[in-house]
């Protein structure tokens, strides 16, 4: 546990709406993911687990508190800076893959590098290396609709890791896949983390969360428990009606 912290949520709260309709999606949550570690986040719907992931990915900003990725405070960056961070440091994997249908696997994976100003040939080279890492180099020239769900999710993971990004955020990445294919995807995430990345996996499936080193339970925007940790940051606070 002495590894470097890649993601740190410090006392993060997120309130949607205001006045009578305000919803506290997260309440003073402390959360860390370290290099080499896969952390699963579980909780019922409405518990704040997706909010946690979108804040970690810089897709949304906290109402209070700070989100640090590799030591950089995301809210201090502004929109352009956060977008750059997403292209260079943060990989995001979605349940429905979110590949661009008109681009081949290699083009999809190269896109974040090209958007970041990398020359096309160099970006393609990195893309092929990332595809090789997830075991589908031979599918580089296929389009998404020529691939199975499991293959598309592999492409999405390659896109999330291309250019050696060290934070992988996965939102129900196995949701649309059958059990065996889902397990392959978890194996892949797991091996990326074993190789030094920090991973955060949001899932409602206990069987999938069990691949993680730590499992954090959220309820009503609060971390209520944690397995596999050295210490629990927030103790049980159960049963407050939301």
């Amino acid at each position, binding site marked *: 546990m002495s590894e470097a912290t890649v993601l740190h949520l410090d006392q993060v709260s997120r309130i949607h709406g205001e006045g009578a309709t305000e919803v506290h999606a997260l309440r003073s949550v402390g959360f860390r993911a370290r290099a080499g570690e896969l952390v699963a986040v579980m909780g*019922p719907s409405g518990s704040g687990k997706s909010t946690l992931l979108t804040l970690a990915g810089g897709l949304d900003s906290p109402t209070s508190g700070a989100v640090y990725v590799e030591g950089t405070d995301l809210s201090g960056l502004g929109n352009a800076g956060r977008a750059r961070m997403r292209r260079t440091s943060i990989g995001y994997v979605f349940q429905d893959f979110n590949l661009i249908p008109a681009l081949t696997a290699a083009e999809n994976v190269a896109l974040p590098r090209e958007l970041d100003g990398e020359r096309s040939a160099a970006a393609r080279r990195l893309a092929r290396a990332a595809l090789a890492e997830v075991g589908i180099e031979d599918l580089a020239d296929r389009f998404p609709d020529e691939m199975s769900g499991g293959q598309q999710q592999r492409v999405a993971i390659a896109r999330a890791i291309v250019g050696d990004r060290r934070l992988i955020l996965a939102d129900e990445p196995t949701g649309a896949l059958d059990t065996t294919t889902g397990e392959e995807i978890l*194996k892949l995430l*797991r091996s990326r983390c074993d190789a030094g990345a920090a991973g955060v996996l949001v899932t409602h*499936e*206990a*069987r999938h*969360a*069990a*691949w*993680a080193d730590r*499992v954090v*339970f959220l309820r009503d925007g609060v971390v*209520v*428990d*944690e*397995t*596999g940790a050295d210490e629990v940051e927030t103790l*049980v*606070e*159960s*049963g*407050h*009606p939301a």
Partner: protein
Amino acid sequence: MTIRSALLALLEHKPMYGYQLRAEFERRTGATWPLNVGQVYTTLSRLERDGLVEGTGVDEDGHGMYVVTAAGREEAAAWFTTPVARSQPPRDELAIKLALAVTVPGVDVGTVIQHQRSATMTALQDYTRLKRQASSGTADSDLAWSLVLDSLVFSAEAEIRWLDHCEARVRRAAAERADDPVAPAAGPSAGPSAGNPSAATVEEVSR
């Protein structure tokens, strides 16, 4: 009856002595349910008394060897073709504990559930680690062990789903009680309580 049937089934494969039977049993089940060799010999002598196995004397190293009889083969075959009875569910400590937790005053049910879920999740993480380490070989015993692991994984997962369900039900019931002041206020609380009813609980049930 399980050990008895399992030993008969193993002896169908080939004649064996007690230690060998134990080793073969554990090789297939990953020592998930350890057998002591005393149990094996007690069971063998009962099987012999019932005419299902026969002692055939000792091998060159002095081990007492056993073979299965025709009646034993029949019983082993019947075991495989008869479903395991579900009519009398085995006593389930956790279900009993929760049934009591929601009816005994002063128990913080939410905490009981949360602690159990963490303990079960920790067990599930352990099984998953074992699965990752398990060789993916094609030998029969590799397959047997990985199926046993899957069984543990599925039942831990089912327990967590059931706990999630219990939590949602208990919270809904508490909310309904709060909306309906006429209803008796006594009874289980899903909210925080001063006591710490489940510190011992977790230790007791964690595997």
